[in-house]
């Protein structure tokens, strides 16, 4: 008791000081300092230059392409991600563990490898590209190609967000719906969907954010044509750093906009989740 008296004011669970210290340092080194430097660089421009740069048609088009394609890809991922998670949680079939294992492949694979492989598959002489060509769809070097790449890298976010929630969902909730005379469709819409809505939003948001900033897997299949509007934002940034006279400020300015978009999205997701969780807990 004496000891407790002396240690008054300390947190009960030991190790708070050191872990908190490491956490703050890590956050600073890995996230805050780089972010601050992005801002610092971009603020070297005058506001006028800044606006002029980011309203250039090429830059605006790149943002439109990145955001538009990422959004479509995230929607596709939301739909198929729910299905994949559902199948993996609810049914037992041969090879289930294998499929479950390769869900993370897009995370593990170097994005350049994914990009080159996808390009090969969907180009005019790749086997998927040929098949699509026959029904009049050109995938490689178009926005469709960009979307395909973004679907590929975004799918794990949705599946992995929903899976644990579906696993935890008691079967009796669905059975209660059945006993009250509801059809399968109504049970899914009214009982299961509200449960997976918050994680689905998280998965959707993460897939969207990842898609908007994606570089490695997209640049090969996109073709990066200014004329066809298949340049993505990351490509523009890279271009500014690659060309003869390196334009740090310009790259940083565009990066800043990306950063702001990411923050807004994270913020929005958090608000939606907060509201959703408020509905169920006292």
């Amino acid at each position, binding site marked *: 008791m004496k000891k407790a008296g002396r240690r008054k004011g300390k947190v009960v669970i030991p190790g708070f000081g050191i872990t908190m210290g490491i956490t703050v340092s890590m956050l600073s080194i890995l996230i805050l300092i780089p972010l601050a430097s992005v801002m610092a660089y971009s603020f070297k421009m005058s506001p006028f230059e800044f606006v002029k740069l980011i309203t250039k048609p090429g830059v605006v088009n790149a943002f439109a392409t990145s955001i538009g394609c990422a959004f479509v890809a995230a929607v596709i991922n939301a739909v198929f991600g729910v299905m994949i998670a559902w199948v993996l949680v609810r049914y037992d079939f041969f090879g289930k563990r294998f499929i479950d294992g390769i869900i993370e492949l897009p995370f593990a694979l170097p994005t350049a490898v994914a990009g080159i492989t996808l390009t090969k598959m969907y180009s005019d002489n790749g086997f998927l590209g040929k098949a699509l060509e026959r029904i009049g769809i050109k995938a490689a070097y178009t926005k469709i190609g960009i979307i395909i790449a973004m679907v590929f890298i975004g799918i794990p976010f949705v599946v992995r967000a929903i899976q644990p929630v579906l696993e935890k969902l008691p079967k*009796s*909730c669905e059975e*209660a*719906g*059945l*006993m*009250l005379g509801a059809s399968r469709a*109504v049970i899914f819409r009214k009982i299961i969907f509200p449960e997976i809505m918050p994680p689905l939003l998280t998965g959707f948001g993460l897939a969207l954010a990842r898609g908007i900033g994606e570089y490695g897997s997209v640049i090969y299949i996109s073709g990066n044509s200014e004329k066809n509007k298949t340049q993505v934002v990351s490509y523009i940034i890279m271009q500014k750093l690659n060309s003869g006279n390196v334009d740090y400020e310009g790259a940083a300015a565009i990066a800043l906009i990306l950063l702001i978009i990411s923050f807004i999205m994270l913020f929005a997701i958090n608000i939606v989740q907060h509201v959703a969780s408020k509905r169920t*807990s*006292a």
Partner: protein
Amino acid sequence: MYVEMKGICKKFGNYEAAKNISFDIEKGKLVALLGPSGSGKTTILRILAGLETQDEGDVIIEGKVINDIPASKRGIGFVFQNYALFRYMTVYDNIAFGLKVQKMSKEKVHERVMEMISLIGLCGLEKRYPDQLSGGQRQRVAFARAIAPNPQLLLLDEPFAAIDAKVRKELRSWLKEMIRKVGITSIFVTHDQEEAVEVADDIIIINEGNLEQMGTPSEIYKHPETPFVANFIGTSIVLSDLSGFKGFEEIEKGKKVIVRPEFVEAFKSDNKKFHDLIPAAEEGVIEKIEFRGSYLEVTLKVGDVRLVTNRSLERRSISVGEKMYVLLHRIYVFDEGTAQRYKNSLLKDVDIELM
């Protein structure tokens, strides 16, 4: 008969969870499915509901075989053990769910939901979410949700299991009253015999997938048909050797004998009321006295045998080590699955029930 189960068998892999279960239930009855954990009660209830498919046998409601009718079309209300309320719906929407599914008009839904909410005494809480309710309140909502669409049969799986002992007693009588009020045929699962005896009109006793006995609580108590039932209902002591007990000389050694506290009378040697019965009694010593609230549970040692009796608090006080006369006036003897009641042969002319 309103609800009938005929020769229901169900296997999970190699495990037989229900073995040739048959019973029927009259309209309007409140029936308990009673048995130890893992005996197959839930399985039987779920087969009746259509949530599980039997391997053999028929489920019949109002004379119609409903084996092939899916759960959602059976029109049976079901209260789940964990209530299974819809977390993302308010109390109102939970209760309205089954009504909306039937495409009932909005006004009618509102009317019925409000009627249900006042029936379960939760007026003013209709906008709450399940997480904002107490366990007892949740159970009431689950009950209201199940009966709102006016099912003809209500099934409840351990409706009181998740509630603490004190509230459970209240809810028990509440539920019984509600079911009476609504007049719905109901079957509930429990492993608590006190609960079954208190609430149910009829009890079905299940053990290891077998139906052991069905009857009113007093029938089951007074005339157990199997050793399992005799042992499971009431507090019993199982003995295998009664030789040496006066009045039971005819019982063969090795037969399974069950003695209940009510079958044992212990009295002091100067007790005038029991004086004439001393020749039929044994001498014993009090080994343990436990206070049970409204009576004492007294353990006596008679020879090598321990017997338990309940003693009214109104009677004279006793103490551990005290010598008393112990009269065993009745026993159950089981022989190859049949139960027989034996009376102490020295008490042939005494009416024990009047003692």
